[in-house]
């Protein structure tokens, strides 16, 4: 297991470097510079601007400097927001986004697995149909519709919860976290149900019943662990879904997370900001995928020995 973990961990830095290199060169080689839109900039001023940001250097030197800066945790200055370092923006926004993301994943697991187990155990009951309906809707209704509707119902009409703004208290977090978790709940419930139905047909389950274990004991001690394998391997893609969803949720609920910067950066063509976000989120996704794979290896020993 340790060897497997080390081998998987060793693959992270080269992948990350590939992401950095790719995004650096793609962005720099594209037509149009960051100062193109500022009208009426005299050529001398423009040259000064470019010199100030190091854009007059050869591309390879710029690349070297950028990677060197990254090693010291510096993402460079924002091209559009004056006197703002991308690192500071990330440092401000990341705690908010991470809190949201972690809570949403937890909520999705805690709601999705029981829902799927209930649906599988009471197969074809009204409960199963309800769970299936939730799963179908959760996948088809995008978060940018769920978010505003939840805000309208629970915030503006019922006044139970605040609709926008950031306070690190439970009330402000409920709606964003629910919005973010809903599609993941749907997937997890569906995967749990499918996995469990398959495992419950296996011979070792019949053996467990035959030796006199109660239904609950069979379920919890024998069936659940193998049945959850697909759920665990979904957790990697799930983090990507959460990251994507957080862009919407942050914009709907007005939260000061990093997702907002990515969207604003893209709209303003703020290259350093977009690159910083891509690198941070790329690293985050890589680590989450790694964690999911390790959990999978722990759950299913065959994977490690491949």
């Amino acid at each position: 297991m340790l060897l497997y973990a080390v081998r998987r961990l060793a693959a992270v830095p080269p992948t990350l470097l590939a992401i950095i290199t790719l995004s650096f060169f793609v962005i720099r080689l594209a037509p149009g510079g960051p100062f193109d839109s500022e009208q009426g900039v005299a050529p001398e001023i423009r040259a000064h601007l470019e010199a100030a940001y190091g854009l007059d250097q050869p591309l390879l030197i710029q690349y070297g400097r950028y990677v060197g800066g990254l090693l010291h945790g510096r993402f460079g200055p924002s091209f559009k927001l004056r006197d703002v370092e991308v690192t500071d923006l990330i440092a401000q926004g990341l705690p908010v986004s991470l809190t949201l993301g972690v809570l949403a994943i937890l909520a999705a697991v805690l709601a999705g697995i029981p829902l799927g187990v209930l649906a599988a155990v009471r197969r074809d009951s009204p409960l199963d149909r309800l769970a299936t309906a939730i799963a179908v809707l959760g996948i088809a209704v995008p978060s940018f519709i769920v978010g505003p509707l939840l805000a309208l119902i629970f915030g503006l009409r019922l006044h139970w919860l605040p609709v926008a703004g950031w306070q690190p208290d439970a009330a402000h977090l409920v709606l964003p976290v629910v919005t973010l978790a809903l599609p993941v709940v749907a997937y997890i419930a569906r995967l749990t149900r499918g996995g469990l139905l398959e495992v419950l047909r296996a011979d070792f389950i019949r053996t467990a019943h035959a030796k006199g274990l109660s239904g609950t004991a069979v379920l919890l001690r024998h069936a659940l662990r193998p049945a959850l394998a697909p759920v665990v391997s979904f957790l990697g893609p799930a983090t990507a879904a959460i990251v994507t969803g957080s862009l919407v949720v942050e914009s709907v609920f007005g939260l000061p997370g990093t997702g907002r910067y990515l969207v604003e950066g893209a709209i303003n063509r703020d290259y350093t900001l977009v690159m910083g976000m891509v690198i941070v989120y790329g690293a985050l996704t890589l680590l989450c995928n790694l964690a999911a794979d390790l959990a999978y290896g722990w759950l299913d020993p065959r994977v490690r020995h491949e």
Partner: protein
Amino acid sequence: MSSWARLKGNRTVLVAGGALVLLAVLALLGPALSPYALDQLDWQHLAAPPGLTSGHWLGTDRLGRDLLVRTLEGVRVSLVIGVLATAVSVVIGVAWGATAGYLGGRTDEVMMRAVDVLNSLPYLFLVIVLTTLVGRGSVSVLLLAIGAIGWITMARIVRGQALSLRHREFIEAAVAAGGSSAHVLARHVVPNLAGVVVVYAALTLPQMVLFESFLSFLGLGVQEPLASLGSLVRDGAKDMQSALWMLLVPASVLIGLILCCNFLGDALRDALDPREY
């Protein structure tokens, strides 16, 4: 039972397929039949609620633009982008996956490793990087960007199939008859992948539609005065407290569209590939 018979016997398919066809026809013809244009302002009826008296059946937005026409236009934009982006992803995915699976060995390893790296990134980021580069609002760039990233699952599935086709007799016969790799791939491998490709294309379409709406919701997709379902939902959400229909009209159409596509894709999968699932 043949695949076609299985498809026809399924009531979900009839309902979902019928609704989808109806929506597509409405989206294509509706705007031409309506007395209102996409960007026409009706000063008499600003933010009019749905009803028959104002002449705007589904109401108007804050600028007095007819919501029915704009929603149908949104469906058209969403469907066109969805279908074309799906086509782009099918072409890339099939070419990539079939080549990797058929050639195998080192080529396969390198090509699939690249797919893994792309797959480990959140999808959306690559699209946002692309939109940063080319600027917003270009529909062709948008669909290229979405399609260029949507091919990954397709490539994986196609590769698996191509891998299993590799050692079948008819492929070996084609190679023995002197066919080049490109010839065997194009004439013998790819045609035998059609079933899987159709199924996954059908399942890709709703994802592409959702993806476009998502980008438009964030303001990175289709720009004014054009409308897509995503941008209509965004505009509607701003006014939802006073004018709920502005959100509900495009939102329910989008949900209906996605649900129909999903049902149809699942049914197609069951019909064409009953063994695997």
